[in-house]
C-alpha cells in the first residue's frame, strides 16, 4: 500500500528518521483503522496544539509533486481504450492537417497545433465520458473550450459528421466560403460555439460567474440547474492573466461544486517556459488550495506507477521535486537517452532503477494529462466532489506527438509548418492510414462509417445526449408590458 512505502522514505532534512517512522506508522494505523477523516482531524489538532503552544509553523499550501489520486484509488476505466486511442489519433491528425494545410496556402492564416496536441486526451476523456449535451433528460453541461485548441474541436466535429471536409479545408478562411473561425466565436458560428474564450483570461472568469448564475436561477425558482456542470479549459500560461485568478475566491464562498477548471499545464507559454525556474503546477496548487478549491494534480502517467512503487528511498520523488519546469520541458524536447542521463542520472540508484529499461521505454514514461486512466480518475473525482469547486492541474507536453517538429520546443506555439518527414513521423506515431504517396496532399481521414470506431464515437455521444459544442440560437421570448406603463410613472417631475 502507498502509505507503507512513503513511511519508509527518508526525507533529506530528517534529523531522526526512527522517530519520524514512529509517527508515520501511527498515522498509517489511524488511516487503516479509522480512515482519512480521522487522520486529518488528528493532524490538524496537532498543528493547532503546537501553534497554541507558541510554535511558529509556517503554512504550506503545497502537496508533494505527485498525483493527488493514488493509483489504488483510481476507478475502473469504463471506456474501450483501444477504440478511443484510434479515434483520438484521427482527431489529432485532422487537427494538425487543417492548420498545416491552411498555412501551405498562405502563412497569413496562422493557427496553432501544439495546444490541442497537448490537451487531446483531456478533451477526449470529457467528450467520451463526462460532458452531457442538452437533451430531454439533461440541461447540458457548459464547456468553456480553450481558444487555441479549436482545431481539435473542429476535427472531432468532422468525425462526428457535423463539419464537412470543405469546412476543414477553409480553417481561418471565412470570408468567401464555408470557413471556420480561428477561435471559438459565437458571432461567426452561432449554432456551434457558445463561449468566446479568447482573449485569454476571459474564459475562467466567465465560467465562474456562469456557475454562480446557474445557482441563482435555481434559488430563484426559475430553472432547475442541479446536476449540470461548468467546465473551463485553461492554459497554464493563460493563468498569468489577472482575470484568470482574480475571481477564484468567489466560487469557494459560494460552494460552487458545479464548477471544474482544467488547467492544461504543458509548461510552455508562447515564447518559452511558463515557469522555467520553478513549477507552475505547484504555484497554481498553492493559489487554488489557498483560496479553498479542491485541487487534483494529474502529473504522472501510469507508466511511472511501477517506478514510484519501487522508490523505497524516495529518490525518484526527490528528483521529481528538484527538477524545475525548464528541465521537464527540455527532457521532452530531447530523448529517452537524455532523460536517462539528466533525470535518472542525478542519483546512481535511480539510474540503476531504469537500467533495464530501453531509451524508448524511458521516453514513453508518460505525463498524467496524456494518460486517459489518470485523467478519467481526476474528472470522475471532480464530478463527485461536493461543497467546493475543483481545479484539475494536468501536466502535459506542448506539441505532444509533433516530434522534432515541435514537441516541448520553445517554438511549439508558432509551429504550423510540417515538412514531409515530420508528417510521416506523425502518421507513424499515431498509425494514421495515409500512404507515402498521399501524405504530401495532407488528406483528412476518418474511419469508415460502419467501423467499430465510428460506432463507438456515436454511441458515446448518444449516451451523453448528443454532440458538443452546440449553441441554442433561439431561447424563447418574454411578454412585454406596454410603453404607457413606464410613461404614467415618468410624467411626474423628480
Amino acid at each position, binding site marked *: 500500500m502507498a502509505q507503507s512505502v512513503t513511511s519508509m522514505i527518508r526525507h533529506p532534512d530528517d534529523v531522526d528518521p526512527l522517530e519520524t517512522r514512529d509517527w508515520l506508522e501511527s498515522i498509517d494505523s489511524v488511516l487503516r483503522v479509522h480512515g482519512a477523516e480521522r487522520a486529518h482531524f488528528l493532524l490538524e489538532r496537532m498543528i493547532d496544539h503546537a501553534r497554541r503552544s507558541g510554535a511558529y509553523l509556517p503554512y504550506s499550501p503545497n502537496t508533494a509533486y505527485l498525483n493527488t489520486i493514488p493509483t489504488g484509488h483510481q476507478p475502473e476505466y469504463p471506456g474501450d481504450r483501444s477504440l478511443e486511442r484510434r479515434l483520438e489519433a484521427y482527431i489529432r491528425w485532422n487537427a494538425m492537417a487543417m492548420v498545416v494545410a491552411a498555412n501551405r496556402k498562405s502563412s497569413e492564416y496562422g493557427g496553432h497545433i501544439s495546444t490541442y496536441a497537448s490537451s487531446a486526451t483531456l478533451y477526449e476523456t470529457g467528450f467520451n465520458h463526462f460532458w452531457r449535451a*442538452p437533451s430531454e433528460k439533461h*440541461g447540458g453541461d*457548459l464547456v468553456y473550450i480553450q481558444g487555441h485548441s479549436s482545431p481539435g474541436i473542429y476535427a472531432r466535429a468532422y468525425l462526428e459528421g457535423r463539419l464537412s471536409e470543405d469546412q476543414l479545408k477553409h480553417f481561418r478562411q471565412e470570408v468567401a466560403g464555408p470557413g471556420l473561425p480561428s477561435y471559438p*466565436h*459565437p*458571432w461567426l458560428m*452561432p449554432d456551434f460555439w*457558445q*463561449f*468566446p474564450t479568447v*482573449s485569454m483570461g*476571459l474564459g475562467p*472568469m*466567465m465560467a*465562474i*460567474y*456562469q456557475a*454562480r*448564475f*446557474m*445557482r*441563482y*436561477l435555481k*434559488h*430563484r*425558482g*426559475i*430553472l432547475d*440547474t442541479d446536476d449540470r456542470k461548468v467546465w473551463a479549459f485553461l492554459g497554464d500560461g493563460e493563468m498569468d492573466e489577472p*482575470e484568470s485568478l*482574480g*475571481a477564484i475566491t*468567489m466560487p469557494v464562498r*459560494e*460552494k460552487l461544486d458545479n464548477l471544474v477548471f482544467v488547467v492544461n499545464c504543458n509548461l510552455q507559454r508562447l515564447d518559452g517556459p511558463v515557469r522555467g525556474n520553478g513549477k507552475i503546477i505547484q504555484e497554481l496548487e498553492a493559489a487554488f488550495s489557498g483560496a479553498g478549491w479542491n485541487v487534483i494534480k494529474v502529473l504522472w502517467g501510469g507508466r511511472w506507477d511501477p517506478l514510484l512503487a519501487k522508490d523505497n528511498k524516495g529518490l525518484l520523488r526527490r528528483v521529481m521535486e528538484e527538477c524545475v519546469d525548464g528541465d521537464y520541458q527540455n527532457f521532452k524536447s530531447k530523448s529517452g537517452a537524455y532523460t536517462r542521463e539528466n533525470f535518472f542520472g542525478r542519483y546512481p540508484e535511480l539510474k540503476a532503477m531504469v537500467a533495464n529499461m530501453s531509451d524508448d521505454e524511458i521516453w514513453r514514461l508518460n505525463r498524467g494529462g496524456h494518460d486517459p486512466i489518470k485523467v478519467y480518475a481526476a474528472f470522475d473525482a471532480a464530478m463527485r466532489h461536493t461543497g467546493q469547486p475543483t481545479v484539475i492541474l494536468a501536466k502535459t507536453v506542448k506539441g505532444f506527438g509533433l516530434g522534432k517538429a515541435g514537441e516541448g520546443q520553445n517554438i511549439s506555439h508558432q509551429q504550423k509548418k510540417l515538412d514531409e518527414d515530420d508528417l510521416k513521423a506523425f502518421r507513424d506515431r499515431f498509425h494514421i492510414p495515409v500512404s507515402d504517396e498521399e501524405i504530401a496532399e495532407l488528406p483528412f481521414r476518418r474511419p469508415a462509417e460502419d467501423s467499430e470506431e465510428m460506432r463507438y464515437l456515436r454511441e458515446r455521444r448518444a449516451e451523453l445526449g448528443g454532440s458538443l459544442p452546440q*449553441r*441554442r*440560437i*433561439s*431561447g*424563447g*421570448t*418574454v*411578454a*412585454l*408590458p406596454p*410603453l404607457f*406603463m*413606464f*410613461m404614467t*410613472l*415618468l*410624467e*411626474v*417631475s*423628480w
Partner: protein
Amino acid sequence: MALVRMLTTLMKDKNIGKHVVPIVPDEARTFGMEGMFRQFGIYSSVGQLYTPQDADQLMAYREDTKGQILEEGINEAGSFCSWLAAATSYSNHGVPMVPFYIYYSMFGFQRIGDFIWAGGDMRARGFLIGGTAGRTTLAGEGLQHQDGHSHVLASTVPNCRAYDPTYAYELAIIVHDGLKRMYAEEESIFYYLTCMNENYVQPAMPEGVEEGVLRGMYRLREGGRGKVRVQLMGSGTILREVLAAAELLEHDFNIPADVWSVTSFNELRRDALATERWNTRHPDAKRRVSFVEQSLADVEGPFIAATDYMKIVPDQVRQWVPGRFVTLGTDGFGRSDSRAALRNFFEVDRHHVVLEALKALADDGALDVSVVVDAMRRLEVDPDKDDPVTL
C-alpha cells in the same frame, strides 16, 4: 434616476418581472437603488445569517436566497461576467433573462472593454447602464471618474446600441423598444444607455417623437421667425444648456434657434453610413436619404452640437449635416468642481453654445463679426482662456 423607476416597474410586471436581473458593483446607493434591497432582495446563496444594522428601516439591506439583485461588490469585471451569464441565458439555459448592469460609466468600456467585446461576440442581450455619466455632470469625482468617452468606445462594438438620452420619456421609449427587439424579436443586440445624476424637471412626452428618439434625433423646440436662424443640437444633460442657449439667442440677440434632442449620434452615423453604402452600390437607383439628412433637409443652419462627451461623438455625423457644423464637447482630462464651473471650463455651457452660434453665423456672412466680439464681453468668455485639452 428615471431608470430605477422603470426598472422597478418592470420587476413588478407579472410577465417579465422575474426575468429581470439587476446587477450592481457596490454602487446601488450612488444610483438611488437602495430602495430595491428590501423590496426585491439581494441574492445570497445562504440567505441572511445576521440581523442587518438597518433592519428597522424601510431600505434595509436584505439578503435572501430568492433575492433578485446581484450585488457583486467593488468588482466590475465580475459584475459584467454576471451580466454576460444572464444576457446569454436564452441560449445557454433556454430562459431569456433581462440583465441591467448599472455602474459608473467610466468603469465600463474603458475598464472591462475586452469582456464587452466578447459580449458582442456571444450575442449577449441586455442593458448596460452607465450611471453618473458625463464629464461635467459627475462634478466632484474628478479626473479618473468623469467619463467623456464611453460613447466613443461603445461605437466600436457593432451590435451595441448606445444612447445618451436627456429625458425620462426618451429613456422609456428606448428601453421599451430595446426589450421588444431583444426579447420579442430575439435580435442579438445589446444596449448602452448613459444616465445622469443631475435632477431636473422631466417634461411629458411630446407627440410623435418616438421614431426620432429611437433613430437618434428629433426637433424638441422650434424657434420663432427671423432673418437668420441657427440649429442647435444637444445630448444628455448638455441638451439643457443648449435649450438655455436658444433662449439667450432669441431674447438677447434676436436670433431664432431650433433645438434638436440628439439621443444617439452613434445610431445616426450607422444609419448614414449604411445609407451611403447602399447609394454607392446602386448608383442608378433613386438615392436613399439617411435619417440625419432627412431630419435636417429643410432647416436653415448653421448647426451647433454640444455634448458632455468628446467632440468626436457629434463629429460622427459631420459629412451629412447640410451646412456649417460646429461641435462642442468635453475633450481633455476631467477635474473636480461644480457642474457650472466644469461646463464653463470645458466650454460646453450655454454661453459657449451662444458664442459658437454667433461665430458660425459671422463665418457664414450672416452677422457682422463685431456682434461676436461684443457678445464675448456680455457672455464673459475670456479670449485668452487656456484650451482645456492642454490642462
